[in-house]
């Protein structure tokens, strides 16, 4: 690992000033960043440790739930308020990583998690995300884990987070602080598609620091489910995952929320399928139709065409669990 200067941020303002300088990165849990630094994928000159900032609180607000950026993934997943009000988020968090990693990883760090595309990690391979302009190794390579939605000729990597898929389904808002003050970014506008700039994972400005997320109150708690399909039963990245939240009244769906992981450069929200389900009975037939709608526009590559079948089947399965049909 390249030598770097270690700085400890005493205040939020100090951290914001520090990150605006070139070659500087924020460190919190370090589970992703230290790994990338060991592999030479990233080599910052300065690391700013923000773990001492008071951003760990989890509290109910008038309109929802506030979770500090430095709250640990394990803490959030077991927090009483989260489990009662937003069980979908707790389920998504528990599906991610291992207990040890969840004890280190923070909410802010999880939002900033980079892709696990093997061509991004392997510094001997071309990768437009790691080194813009070098090409995409995955496009013609072993692309079994890769995107089926929203990819570009420059990049077919997927976002690896489970937490973010849960947050996407729950209409979370990312709260960031910068030199000009605070800004609220809806989760669906936080991460970006690769387009011509796969090196950019999100819309966070260089001088901005994530300070928390907010989840608006909803009626999905009773009918929520996070389904993660992976190569082994636990501790693996998703081939496909589905976050489903339903507001059901007397067998009829009032509102639905659906998001998928493992299929795109960002958590993939299924707006059209949600619209289809609103006002319809919670039945397997309707779930199947919603899944077909969700798959419109999907495009597979050489080794990931199985996702074209796995994804709709997973949507149906998640909806059946969420609605209590299973």
């Amino acid at each position, binding site marked *: 690992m390249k030598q770097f200067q270690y700085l400890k941020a005493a205040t939020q303002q100090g951290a914001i000033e520090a990150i605006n300088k070139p070659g500087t990165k924020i460190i919190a849990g370090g589970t992703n960043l230290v790994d990338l630094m060991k592999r030479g994928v990233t080599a910052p000159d300065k690391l700013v440790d923000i773990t001492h900032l008071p951003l760990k609180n989890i509290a109910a607000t008038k309109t929802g739930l506030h979770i500090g950026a430095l709250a640990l993934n394990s803490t959030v997943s077991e927090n009483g308020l989260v489990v009662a009000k937003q069980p979908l988020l707790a389920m998504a968090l528990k599906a991610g*990583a*291992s*207990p040890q990693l969840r004890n280190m990883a923070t909410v802010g760090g999880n939002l900033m998690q980079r892709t696990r595309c093997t061509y991004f990690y392997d510094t001997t391979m071309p990768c437009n995300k790691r080194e813009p302009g070098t090409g995409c190794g995955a496009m013609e390579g072993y692309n079994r884990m890769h995107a089926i939605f929203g990819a570009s000729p420059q990049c077919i990597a997927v976002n690896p987070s489970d937490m973010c898929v849960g947050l996407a389904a729950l209409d979370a808002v990312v709260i960031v602080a910068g030199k000009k003050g605070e800004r609220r970014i809806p989760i669906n506008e936080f991460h970006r598609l690769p387009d011509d700039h796969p090196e950019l994972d999100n819309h966070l400005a260089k001088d901005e620091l994530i300070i928390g997320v907010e989840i608006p109150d909803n009626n999905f708690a009773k009918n929520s489910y996070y389904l993660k399909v992976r190569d082994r039963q636990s501790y693996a990245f998703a081939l496909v995952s589905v976050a489903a939240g339903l507001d059901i009244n007397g067998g009829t769906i009032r509102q639905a929320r659906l998001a998928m992981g493992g299929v795109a450069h960002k958590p993939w929200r299924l707006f059209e399928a949600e619209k289809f389900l609103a006002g319809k009975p919670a039945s397997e037939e309707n779930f199947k139709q919603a899944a077909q709608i969700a798959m419109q526009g999907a495009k597979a590559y050489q080794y990931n065409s199985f996702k074209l079948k796995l994804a709709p089947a997973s949507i149906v399965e998640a909806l059946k669990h969420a609605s209590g049909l299973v």
Partner: protein
Amino acid sequence: MKDKIVHSDTEAGSDVKDNSRRNFLKQSALITAVALTPGVAVKAAESHVDERIAEAFEKMPLKMEVNGVAKTLMVEPRATLLDILREQLDLTGTKKGCDHGQCGACTVHIDGHRVNSCLTLGIMVNGKKVTTIEGLAKGENLHPMQEAFLKHDGFQCGYCTPGQIMSAVACIREGHANSELEIREYMSGNICRCGAYPNIVNAIQEVKEGGMPV
């Protein structure tokens, strides 16, 4: 300048030794340090070969409690807790498996919570309490989890065992050892290539059901 660095008085010797990875890393580190250090130090480094001069500018103080003993060290910011435990404190019970947070062999407790020490920068543990496998036994008396691993053959080659045991203790303390299924899920961060999983689960269940304090 390069030649001078190679023949440091601490690692002078054969060509083989000079070309070792360790020396290469030390050279790289010195070059970086020289670029960042004030003129006096540059002059010292140029006129004298001692890489310890460079180290003095690279290292930072780290105070932590390891297995109940206060430790004060000088560490490079890039040194992981795992490497500090093994290389500087000679606590080699904690194992380096994958070194990328994928296998769990390096699991230790920081302030009572299990973490991967390979992805933890040592400098960020400043002021905290670390427990390693060496800190579980009380004198000659093994920890109940260590006894249970012996009784149930919870290992074959033994390389993953320190991490398994640290994780197993945490698993019970966290309240995640209530069924075989739950134990398997909450032990999934510790890989055993010998496949001793059934016996590891048995060991954890026995300790859990025995109700002994862990």
